[in-house]
């Protein structure tokens, strides 16, 4: 059962219409090489799920890959401004923007990880989000008779998570903030790991207690050095300011196609390194 694959083959597992969730948070450790490959393979009607997304969601919205976005927050941070492709997609009616509180995304994924149809949520008890969205419902707690909000579980077909280290069996270690990635690896039907480094099994075993995602949960592994760029990757690289700033300014699909093209060599680097081994 060979799990290590090329980026193309791994992303090829994704079907049009799938529910996809990405690891990381805003511009940190997002699996951007895989996101770019999804755009290159021109996947359609994806349902994206993330607590707080930035270029990952924005880029796929720009390239018309997206049917809906379930998220608590979609924007770059202060310095880079708003996620305009996402916004325009929602404003034009092309994309369904399903606003969550970040926590209700977390709860919906917890529901998936426990394979239950919903998760009760304490905090969401006021405002219009409750009224406007059919994935929230207020019911009566059968034990106390008090009202309680339920959020419908979200089961990603595929989760894509970028990590610093992974062995060929899929045992993966995330350095620095893990965000919701561990939960994600338990919530999704299939887990694709993209990794800065594929480390020897014997070496990862020395850090067995630090493994965040045990290999048996992992379906596919892709070696992609700089696979989170232009997002940051703790201990490896900072945000690639130039690349993000350049992307923010792009408005046409052709510009973005060229941007994706320019990343190809980098995105496929791990594969070539792998073949050499």
């Amino acid at each position, binding site marked *: 059962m060979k799990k290590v694959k090329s980026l193309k083959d791994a992303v090829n597992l994704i079907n049009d219409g799938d529910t996809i969730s990405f690891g990381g948070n805003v511009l940190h450790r997002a699996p951007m090489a895989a996101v770019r490959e999804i755009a290159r393979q021109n996947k359609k009607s994806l349902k994206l799920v993330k607590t707080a997304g930035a270029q990952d969601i924005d880029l796929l919205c720009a390239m018309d890959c997206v049917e809906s976005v379930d998220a*608590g927050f979609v924007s770059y941070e202060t310095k880079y401004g708003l996620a305009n492709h996402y916004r325009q997609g929602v404003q034009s009616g092309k994309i369904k923007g399903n606003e969550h509180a970040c926590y209700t995304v977390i709860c919906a994924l917890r529901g998936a990880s426990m394979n239950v149809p919903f998760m009760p949520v304490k905090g969401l008890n006021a405002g219009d*989000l409750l009224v406007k969205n059919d994935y929230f419902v207020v019911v009566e707690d059968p034990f106390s008779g008090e009202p309680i909000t339920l959020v419908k579980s979200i089961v990603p077909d595929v989760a894509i998570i970028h990590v610093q280290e992974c062995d060929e069996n899929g045992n993966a270690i995330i350095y*620095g903030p893990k965000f919701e990635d561990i939960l994600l690896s338990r919530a999704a039907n299939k887990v694709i790991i993209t990794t800065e480094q594929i480390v020897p099994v014997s070496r990862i075993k020395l850090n067995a207690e630090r493994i965040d995602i045990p290999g048996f949960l992992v379906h596919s592994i892709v070696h992609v050095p700089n696979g989170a760029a232009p997002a940051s990757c703790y201990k490896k690289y900072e945000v690639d300011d130039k690349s993000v700033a350049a992307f923010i300014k792009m408005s046409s699909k052709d510009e973005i196609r060229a941007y994706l093209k320019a990343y190809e060599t980098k995105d496929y680097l791990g594969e070539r390194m792998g073949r050499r081994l």
Partner: protein
Amino acid sequence: MRTEGYRVSDIMTCCISNMLQDNETVFHGVSSHLPMVAMKLAKSMHAPDLVHLNIPGGVNPSSIKHASYSSAGADLLGTAEAYFPLEEVFDLSMRGKLDVAFLGGIQFDLNGNVNASVIGDYHKPKVRLPGGAGSAVLIPTAKKAIIWRVKHDKRTFVEKVDFTTTRGNLWKIVTPLCIFEYRKGKLHLESIHPTSSLEEVRDNTGFDLIYDEIKYTASPTNHELAMLKKIDPYDFRSIEF
């Protein structure tokens, strides 16, 4: 907008710092440099045992100097005392154990409703905003929610929000002009910054101001300004201005 050696960002940071008490658990999210600096300031002054919580999960990062463009990056974990990630901060707030949450928002009305979602219709919005992030669950559950906003105009402070992303335990709203306090279901003008005036606040607010007396926000002390230089040498607190 410099006056006597301090700026509006300094006033906002210092007055927020003074809202925080020792031993409180306090959370800030993404794009939240100003409250992050205010928390660090409080911790360096009157609230050494304040518990600083954030998205990357770094409890009490010993330095915020390297946070750079992001207040959700790994830097906040690298120098932290422990790891307590976002998921758990939310759970903590649900349990009633988060004292203060810093949140954003785009529109606010007199009745304390917060909009971070859309302008226009929710399903086909004129403007799709970034979203309330944690607000919709934190404003109802944190003991005290503080909103800061670097824009104060009639599009921000409106008679009635286009969409109520959330409402609840809103406590203060801090703007470049003033501080509002939310009590008895209404926003009250608590104090006007020394750099502004009642007229300026009135001219830039879309609802009638409620106040008992005109008070002014305390100016930053020299001690506070000196401490700010030390803990925030790259002036992250002004990044949104």
